[in-house]
Structure formats: structure tokens, C-alpha cells
């Protein structure tokens, strides 16, 4: 549909020049941090919280909250991009690299299904959560991650659309095949690269 111009549209909310290169196609700059969740917000008491790495691994692993907090913790400055079109630039999270977790479990498959308290799932290739590309985060901008944003802990995969960054993460299941997660089975793209604008099945 190249060539179509919306009559009388000039653009009221153009991205500042210095941020343009950080905004993927079809996204707009959002200063807040909107909440989008399918279903009610789960509540996970810390004394019952665990994180697992299981499935096709050499050794399934599980961490309690206390054990998890003892793992190497890092700050993750990043931009995040939601498939509903907003992007939040220059934010930061704090957490544990998925590399640390997978190293202990030794994945034997090429795909991961992230699963959450509240039963959300999302599928990601192992190569998209390794080599410093994904974290399990418990802090946002220096504060404990709010429950509505996935606290106590969520997956963070900032280079993919944000539905891949599963809130209320309970574990990573390593698989030998790719299995669509919740949104991926409901019309959204299997990989979700914002720079290729992979929003829906047909993209």
C-alpha cells in the first residue's frame, strides 16, 4: 500500500530526532509503563516462590527466592517495545542473566518455553535467551519489580516484543521442538522481532 497518504495528517507526536534510531517501525514513544495482562494478576508469596530450569536439560535445577538472590546480579539498561505499539526507551532492570541459570542446567534442546505463575507461556529459541540477551529480573529502575509488572520476577528479553518477557516467571522448560506459547497460539508472531515488525502470524 505504498503511496497512500492520510488526508490532513501531519503527525503530532513525532519522535525526537535523537531517539529516532532507537524506535522500531510502527512504534511510538511512551514515557509511562502501561500494564497489559491476559487475566487476573497472580500473587506469588516469596516464601513459596521458586524458579525452575527443567525439560531437556542435563540436570533440572530449582532455586528458592533466597538462593536466587545469591546468584550474580546485574543491572540491565534497555529499551522495551510492546506489540501494542508503545516503546519505553532508556529504562533499566536488575536481575540474573539466563546464561547463569542455563549453564547450571545444561540445555540439550534448542527451544525454551517460559512458564509463569498464572499459567502464561511464551516460546523462545535458546539462542534468543543466551549470550547476554535475557535475564530473570526482580528490580525495575532500582525498585522491587511491582506485582502488576510481573513481580516478584519476570523474564526480560528486550530485543523481542515485550510479551516474550513473561511476567511472574516460574521456570524455563528446555524443549527439543518449538511449541507456540499463549499469545503465539492466539494470533501473534512466533518470534516477535520488533525491528522486523513481526507482530502477527501473517507478518
Amino acid at each position, binding site marked *: *500500500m505504498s503511496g*497512500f*497518504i*492520510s*488526508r*490532513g*495528517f*501531519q*503527525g*503530532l*507526536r*513525532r519522535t525526537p530526532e535523537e531517539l529516532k534510531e532507537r524506535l522500531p*517501525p*510502527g512504534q*511510538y514513544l*511512551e514515557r*509511562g509503563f*502501561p*500494564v*497489559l*495482562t*491476559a*487475566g*487476573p*494478576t497472580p500473587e506469588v508469596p516469596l516464601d513459596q516462590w521458586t524458579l525452575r530450569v527443567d525439560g531437556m536439560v542435563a540436570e533440572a535445577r530449582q532455586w528458592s527466592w533466597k538462593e536466587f538472590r545469591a546468584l550474580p546480579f546485574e543491572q540491565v539498561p534497555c529499551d522495551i517495545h*510492546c506489540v*501494542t*505499539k*508503545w516503546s519505553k526507551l532508556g529504562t533499566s532492570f536488575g536481575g540474573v542473566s539466563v546464561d547463569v541459570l542455563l549453564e547450571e542446567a545444561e540445555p540439550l534442546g534448542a527451544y525454551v518455553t517460559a*512458564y509463569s505463575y*498464572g*499459567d*502464561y*507461556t511464551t516460546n523462545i529459541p535458546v539462542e534468543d535467551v543466551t549470550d547476554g540477551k535475557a535475564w530473570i529480573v526482580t528490580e525495575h529502575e532500582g525498585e522491587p519489580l511491582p506485582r*502488576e509488572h510481573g513481580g516478584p520476577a519476570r523474564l526480560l528479553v528486550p530485543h523481542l516484543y515485550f510479551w516474550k518477557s513473561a511476567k511472574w516467571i516460574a521456570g524455563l522448560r528446555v524443549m527439543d521442538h518449538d511449541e*507456540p*506459547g*499463549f*499469545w503465539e*497460539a*492466539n*494470533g*501473534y508472531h512466533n518470534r516477535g522481532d520488533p525491528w522486523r515488525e513481526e*507482530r*502477527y*502470524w*501473517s*507478518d
Partner: protein
Amino acid sequence: MERLAGAVTPVEQRAPGRWQIGTVMRIKQETPRVKSFRISLPMWMPHLPGQHYDVRLTAPDGYRAQRSYSIASTPLDEGEIELTIDLLDGGEVSPYFHDVVIEGDRVEVRGPFASYFVWRGEEPVLLVGGGSGIVPLMAMLRHRRRTMPGLPMRLVYSVRTAADVIYADELGEETMLTYTREPPAGWTGHTGRIDGSLFETAPSIATAFVCGSNSFVEAAAGLLLDAGYAPERIRTERFGPTG
């Protein structure tokens, strides 16, 4: 682990999902801040009530803005869709639709998309809407009226004042309104924020659809859980800032 996924049967992607140029056939001013746009489409596909379309605006220099809007119409309205758009201060796409678009204008859209917040005829069904959160619920209500008027469906609809009621002339006996700011003169129904008195306890509801702002959805979903609704029967759609 399969709760959400298991509760929803994935559908085939029937839509072309391609950008197409629709024509605005009719515009209705629903409230001072809300307008509905009937758009005829050359590549129309039947949608499921609850699905959305993406809208893309292009400026002469190539600058573009995209937003998603819920469909308000039933898929029985062949060849066209209705998008109901709330005017957001400081927004970009909604002010364009409100202040610039007139009947006969062409607009670029693609859809329908997403298949989680959709009604496939489960019954009985409870709809809970806050403000413009009623839009996807209206597609469900209109579809039920046209196809299965006897099917048990209730709508709980929270608005600020009488002037803010969208689709006022279409709401019937299935609807329970509550006015959070100012009820109309002589109003004897519910006032104030939604509370447990608006919901049956321990109901045999197949699915509850809750749509509105995040705070509205959180409150409503909490009330439903308290009333004994199973979490897997509560589907939510939180309207973000879609300016």
C-alpha cells in the same frame, strides 16, 4: 501450566492481515469524547467479537503512526467494520480521527487480530466494561442480539456520568449501569465504583470478559475472584494509552 492456553482454542488466521484502504461511510458522535466510525473494506473478513484492527496514518513526508482499536460491530455486518475511538489528550491517532476524518475519507487498516479476548458463543457470559472498555464488549452484545437473543448475557458497565454512556440507545435489560461521578436525575440504580453487589456469587458463568483501564480491570477481576469466579474463566483486556 496449560490454564490460559487450554482455556482457549486457537483459531486459524482467517484474515489477510494485509494493509488495505477502507472508506469511512458513517461517523457517529457517541459522547463528547467518543466517536464511532463505520468503515467499508475491500478485503473484509469476518472477525470474532472482541478482535481488533490496526490503523496506520501516513503523513506526506512518510512519517507514520499506528494504533490498535477494538471492533465494535458484529461480523454479520458484511463488508464493513465499526471502530469506536476515545479521544485522548496529547494523542496522535485519536485526535486525527476526531478532528480531521470526515465521511468519505479513506483510512488504512489491517486485521482482524488476536484470538484470546474473543467470544465464541460460550454461555452464560458476563461482560464488565469501564468507560471505553465497552467497545469490544459491544461487538459481543450486538452479535448476540443478532444471532442468539435468548442466550444469557449480562453487561455491567461503569461510566462517570450520563453524558459518558457510549451506545446509550442500544443498551437494554441485560445492562446494569453504575455512575461513578454523577448519576442522572432520578437514578435509582447503582452508583459509585463497581462492587460485589453487581455480581452474582458462585455463578455458573462460562466466561467473564473484563475490559477497561488497568485499574478498572484489576478491581473488577478482584471482585470476580472474591465472588467465586475461577481465574481461568476471567479474560481481561487492559486499554493502554492508545493516543
